[in-house]
C-alpha cells in the first residue's frame, strides 16, 4: 500500500534526487564532527569527507532540479523540502554516535557508494556517468579511510572492538533498505540509465564479509524486514531534527522575501 508521497512519475528525477540526498545528509553528518574529533588529523579528515559529499550533493541536486523542470536549484531542494520529500537511505541519516558507530556506518555506506558509482560511471545518461566518474575517485578514499579505521578499531583494543561491534549491531537493521528496488528503478536500470539497488547486494555482502572478518567483528542477524520505504517519504526520527538545523536560515529568511546569501 503506497503512501500519498509515492509516485511513479519522472523516475529519472527521483533516482538522481536519491543520489543527491544520500550525499547531502551524510555530508551534514560528517560536518557535525568538525572540531569534535578525537584529534586534529581526524577533524581534517572529517572536513575532507564532508566537502566531497557536499560537492557530490550539489552536482546531483543541480541535475535533479533540471530533471524536475520547475526552475529550482540545488539549494531549493536541499533547504526547502520536509522529511517526506527526502529520498536518502535511512542509514545515512542516523546520528554519528561515537567514532565506532561513525566508522561502522561509513564502512557500510562507502562500500555501497563505491559499487554503485562504479556501475553508474557506465550509465547511458552521460551526465550521471560524468558525476559518478568524478565521485568514485573521492569515494575510493572514503572506502579506504573507513576500512583502515575499521581495522584499527576492530583489532585495536577490547573497548574499540566492542564499540565498533555495537555500531554494526545497531545499524544493521538499515542494510535491507539499501537494496530496496521499486519497479521504476528496475526499469531505469534496464535502460542502462540507473542501477537496480538489489543488484549491488552480492558484491556488497562479499566486501562487507572481508572487512568485518579482517577487523574481527561479527555480522549481526536481522530478519531483513524493511518496514516503510523512503520512496513513500518515510524516514527514521533523526532526519527531521537534522533538517531543523540545516534549513533554519532559508526558512526564516525565505528567498521569496528577497533574502540573498
Amino acid at each position, binding site marked *: 500500500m503506497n503512501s500519498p508521497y509515492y509516485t511513479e512519475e519522472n523516475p529519472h528525477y527521483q533516482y538522481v534526487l536519491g543520489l543527491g540526498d544520500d550525499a547531502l545528509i551524510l555530508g551534514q553528518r560528517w560536518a557535525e564532527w568538525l572540531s569534535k574529533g578525537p584529534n586534529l588529523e581526524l577533524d581534517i579528515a572529517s572536513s575532507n569527507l564532508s*566537502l566531497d559529499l557536499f560537492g557530490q550533493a550539489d552536482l546531483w541536486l543541480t541535475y535533479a532540479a533540471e530533471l524536475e523542470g520547475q526552475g529550482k536549484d540545488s539549494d531549493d531542494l536541499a533547504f526547502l523540502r520536509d522529511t517526506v520529500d527526502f529520498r536518502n537511505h535511512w542509514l545515512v541519516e542516523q546520528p554519528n554516535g561515537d567514532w565506532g558507530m561513525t566508522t561502522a556506518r561509513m564502512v557500510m555506506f562507502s562500500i555501497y557508494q563505491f559499487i554503485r558509482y562504479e556501475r553508474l560511471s557506465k550509465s547511458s545518461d552521460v551526465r550521471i556517468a560524468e558525476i559518478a566518474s568524478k565521485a568514485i575517485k573521492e569515494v575510493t578514499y572514503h572506502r579506504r579511510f573507513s576500512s583502515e579505521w575499521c581495522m584499527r578499531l576492530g583489532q585495536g583494543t577490547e573497548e574499540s572492538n566492542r564499540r565498533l561491534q555495537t555500531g554494526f549491531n545497531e545499524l544493521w537493521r538499515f542494510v535491507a533498505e539499501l537494496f530496496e528496488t521499486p519497479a521504476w528503478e528496475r526499469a531505469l536500470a534496464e535502460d542502462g540509465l540507473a542501477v537496480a539497488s538489489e543488484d549491488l547486494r552480492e558484491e556488497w555482502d562479499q566486501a562487507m564479509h572481508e572487512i568485518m572478518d579482517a577487523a574481527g567483528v561479527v555480522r549481526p542477524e536481522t530478519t531483513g524486514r524493511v518496514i516503510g520505504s523512503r520512496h513513500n517519504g518515510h524516514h527514521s526520527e533523526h532526519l527531521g531534527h537534522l533538517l531543523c538545523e540545516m534549513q533554519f536560515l532559508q526558512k526564516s529568511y525565505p528567498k521569496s522575501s528577497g533574502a540573498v546569501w
Partner: protein
Amino acid sequence: AENEAQFQARIDAEEFIEPKDWMPEGYRKTLVRQMSQHAHSEIVGMLPEGNWVTRAPTLKRKMILVAKIQDEAGHGLYIYSGAETLGTSREQMVDDLHSGKAKYSTIFNYPTMTWADVGAVGWLVDGAAITNQIPLCRCSYGPYARAMIRVCKEESFHQRQGYESLLAMVKGTDAQKKMVQDAFDRLFWPSLMMFGPPDSDQPPSQNMKWKIKRFTNDELRQRFVDATIPQAEFLGLKIPEGVVWNEDTNHYDFPELDWDEFWAVVKGDGVCNDDRLNSRRKAIDEGAWVREAAEAYAEKQKIQQAAE
C-alpha cells in the same frame, strides 16, 4: 654570554635561527608560549565557525565554511609541529590549553550570534590575524616564519570569502543589512584587541630585539583600522563612533579600547569561555579510546612485520 652576543649578531644580520642552533632560554620560552598560543587560537577558532557549519544558508557557503575550518585545523598542526622543534610536545601544549594555563586569542570567547557573524569573523578576525602574521613571515625563528608564509596565503583567501558573504547579504533584505551592521558593531572592537594591549602598557619588548616581533601592537592595530574602515564603507555600513579620518596623520583616529572588557575576557568572563574549553576537553576526552586503539593497532602491526 659569549653565545648570547653571537646569537644577537646573527639576529641583527637577519639570519634565521634553526631548531638545532644555540638560543637563549628566554628566546625559546617566549617562542613556545607565542607559537602554542597561536596554535591554540587556530584550534579554538574552529568552534565559533563550527557553531554555524550545520546551519550555513546555501551549499556554496557550507563548503566554503567547511574548507575554512579544515584549513584552521591544518594551521594548528603546522604551528604545533613548529613549536615542537623547541622541545615541547603537542600533548603538553594541549594539556596547558585545557587546564587554562595556556591562553588563546580572546576574540574566540565572543559568541557567533548570527550568520553575519561568520562573515564578519572571516573579514575582521582573519584580517587582524593576517595583519599580525605578515611580519611574522620574517620572524627570526625559521620554522615559525615558514609556517606563517603558508598560513597567510590561506587566510587571505578566507578573509576575502568572509567579506564576500557580507557583500551578498547587504544586497538582500533590511533584516540582512541589520544583521551585517550588528555583526560589524559587535566584532570590530574585539578584533582590534587581537593586537594585544597598548604599547603604553608594554615594557620595550625583548621580542623586538630578537626580531620575533617586527612592529608594535599599536602600529599593527593602526594598519588594520586603516585597511578595514574603507571596506566597511564599501559595504554601506555605519562607522563606529569616534573613528574619524585624520587628514594630517593620514590615518584613522579611534578612541581608547575598553581594556577592562579585554582583561575580563582573558580572566574567563566572556560569554563563551566555558563553552570553548568544555568543547575542546569533551572532544579530547571522548576520543581517548580511539587514540589508544590506533596506538595498540600500530604496535601489533610493528610486531607482526618484525616477525615476518
